[in-house]
């Protein structure tokens, strides 16, 4: 008993000293309302968890990786003391997998962790899209987030070349040719991407970008993203009633849970679950290293990117889609996402009140999934116009019709409910009183979507 008291008191004194001299309690992030403690409110935190694992596993991999296309004495299948036939980049990857204790687990978890991070970033993005979290005052947060998504994809692109397999080399060439083919920008950017143009120059640049340049940009943007989150707090639940947002903010002020230790432990719980799952999957299904660049015995090397770029890859397969057009389409989608807060200006955040953007989001998601699966099943097969039309147009039409009918039904029922209530009880809910009297447009996506 005495020892326990002594121990606790000493611990408290030490911790008290640390807290006092560092001012640590002030480091805590913003408290959050109690009802936000469900996973759907913390999709951003999951991406950060995934990022942390990528940093840790990436730094460990960096201890072994040799970013060179020349031969090396490292052991990767050749007799001891002989130079490798494979490039050092590939050879050191082979060495990590086969000779470093638990290296296969480390490398596989880094790769699968990248997949998971990109997937979680997409989940975070689409959640925000559907629940309208980009609306005032969080426009900048959304734009910074879009850039973060871009950086995450950039990490994926640059990391893909590093094992220096024939597959990753071919796919990276495709990406670079796409950039070089751009009018004006291509010849201008070319020397910056290619360096002196040698394979070593390219590998060095991809390596520098993957381990330093993009991570620095990513961390800076992440800081901005979290700082903006600290300023505005968590986005209120999606609602049709702007007043409800104000009520939510008032409630958030009093009914909150502190960051330390509650939120911290809550996120840590998810982080540990994530790492456990990731390591489990990496242990059960370790990544198999494909053959190296320049392997003359290689057969059956298909060229395809990882799943998150398959949709661009499939886009280039389409009849009439030139590389320039494919990059153009990608940039239009990107600009749309970036400027979304300034396109969707209504005050209501619930998806049912934003039929146009609901339909566009569904179509984007549908086409993304469709192209990814399609690209995975038939990489590099030319797709003719009728087949494109038969698969992509229905996605857009069905979405437009379903969302339109849904909105039409919702508006009529909501109008009757509104009429039943006294309008002055809901000031600001539907500021334009004429809107209720306007006849609903059948399939009225275009007519009434911008409210």
């Amino acid at each position: 008993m005495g020892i326990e008291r002594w121990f606790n008191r000493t611990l408290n004194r030490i911790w008290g000293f640390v807290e006092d001299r560092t001012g640590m309690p002030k480091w805590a992030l913003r408290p959050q309302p109690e009802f936000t403690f469900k996973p759907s409110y913390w999709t951003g935190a999951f991406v950060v968890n995934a990022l942390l694992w990528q940093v840790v596993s990436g730094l460990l991999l960096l201890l072994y990786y040799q970013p060179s296309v020349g031969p090396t004495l490292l052991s990767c299948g050749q007799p001891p003391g002989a130079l490798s036939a494979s490039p050092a980049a590939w050879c050191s990857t082979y060495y990590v997998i086969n000779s470093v204790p638990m290296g296969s687990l480390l490398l596989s978890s880094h790769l699968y962790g990248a997949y998971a991070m990109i997937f979680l970033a997409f989940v975070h993005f689409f959640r925000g899209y559907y629940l309208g979290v980009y609306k005032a005052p969080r426009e900048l947060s959304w734009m910074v987030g879009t850039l973060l998504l871009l950086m995450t994809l950039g990490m994926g692109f640059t990391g893909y070349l590093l094992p220096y397999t024939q597959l990753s080399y071919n796919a990276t060439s495709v990406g670079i040719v796409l950039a070089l083919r751009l009018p004006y920008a291509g010849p201008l950017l070319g020397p910056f991407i290619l360096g002196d143009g040698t394979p070593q120059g390219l590998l060095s640049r991809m390596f520098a970008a993957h381990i330093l340049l993009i991570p620095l940009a990513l961390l800076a943007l992440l800081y901005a993203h979290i700082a903006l989150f600290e300023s505005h707090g968590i986005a209120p639940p999606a609602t049709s009633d702007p007043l409800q947002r104000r009520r939510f903010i008032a409630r958030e002020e009093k009914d909150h849970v502190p960051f330390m230790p509650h939120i911290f432990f809550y996120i840590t719980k998810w982080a540990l679950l994530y790492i456990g799952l990731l390591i489990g999957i990496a242990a059960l299904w370790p990544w198999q290293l494909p053959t190296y660049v320049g392997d003359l015995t290689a057969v059956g090397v298909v060229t395809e990117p990882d799943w998150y770029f398959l949709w661009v890859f499939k886009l280039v397969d389409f009849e009439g889609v030139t590389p320039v057009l494919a990059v153009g389409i990608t940039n239009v989608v990107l600009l749309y996402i970036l400027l979304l807060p300034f396109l969707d200006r209504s005050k209501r955040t619930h998806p049912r009140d934003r039929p146009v953007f609901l339909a566009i989001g569904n179509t984007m998601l549908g086409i993304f999934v469709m192209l990814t699966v399609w690209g995975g099943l038939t990489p590099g097969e030319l797709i003719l116009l009728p087949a494109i039309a038969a698969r992509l147009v229905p996605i857009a039409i069905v979405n437009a019709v379903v969302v339109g009918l849904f909105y039409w039904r919702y508006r009529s029922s909501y109008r009757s409910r509104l009429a039943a209530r006294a309008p002055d009880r809901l000031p600001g809910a539907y500021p334009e009183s004429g809107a209720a009297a306007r006849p609903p447009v059948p399939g009225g996506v275009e007519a009434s979507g911008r409210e």
Partner: protein
Amino acid sequence: MAGLLGAGGLGIAGGALQYVQPPVVGATSYFKTQLLDLDGSPLTATKVMAEYDVLTSDLILFNYPLLNEPNFLLNVAPPNGSSGGATNVPGGVGPQKSIVAYSAICQHLGCPAPALSYYPPGTCSQAFNGRGFYLHCTCHGSTYDVANGAANLTGPAVLPLPQVVLEWNEGDDTLAAVGMTAGSPPVNGHLDTLQGDYPVGASVQLQKQAPISPLSCFFP
């Protein structure tokens, strides 16, 4: 004062940009490169005619003019005493003017051999312009006419493959690469065929590579 700082800043930025864009490596003009056989001995047209023909499915590659610019060496003449194939093709050398060399990097998006592979007659049922043998890229399906300057047979590529100018020395029967055909597009992935890696030098050895397997016959 501000102007001085601005000038200094611009100078530093300019200096940093120079590091970002290092001196390009490459050659200033085309040069003669002797072709060496798989065993390192000088390659002769007689050997090519005897060992390779239009039915050869293995890919015979050599780099020219730069180390990262692989090319196919093809003999499109039929095997001795049989028909098929083609002779007297544009840019062809050798006794039947049937030995040609094309860039082994697809002009669409830069997929190299063996993704870009040679399809001997009879591999696929399709014929384009009466041609049953061609180079076909499994990345996105571009097809090139090996007997007509690697012109496009099917898209999505719009440019022909760059063709290497071969020189046949009838005196000692050797083969050499001396340049690229005038009007050839740059090798894909390069802003200029002569820039982007180190030159191969005075001689270069052939390499043999298995074609992509299985050869897919998906054509539009």
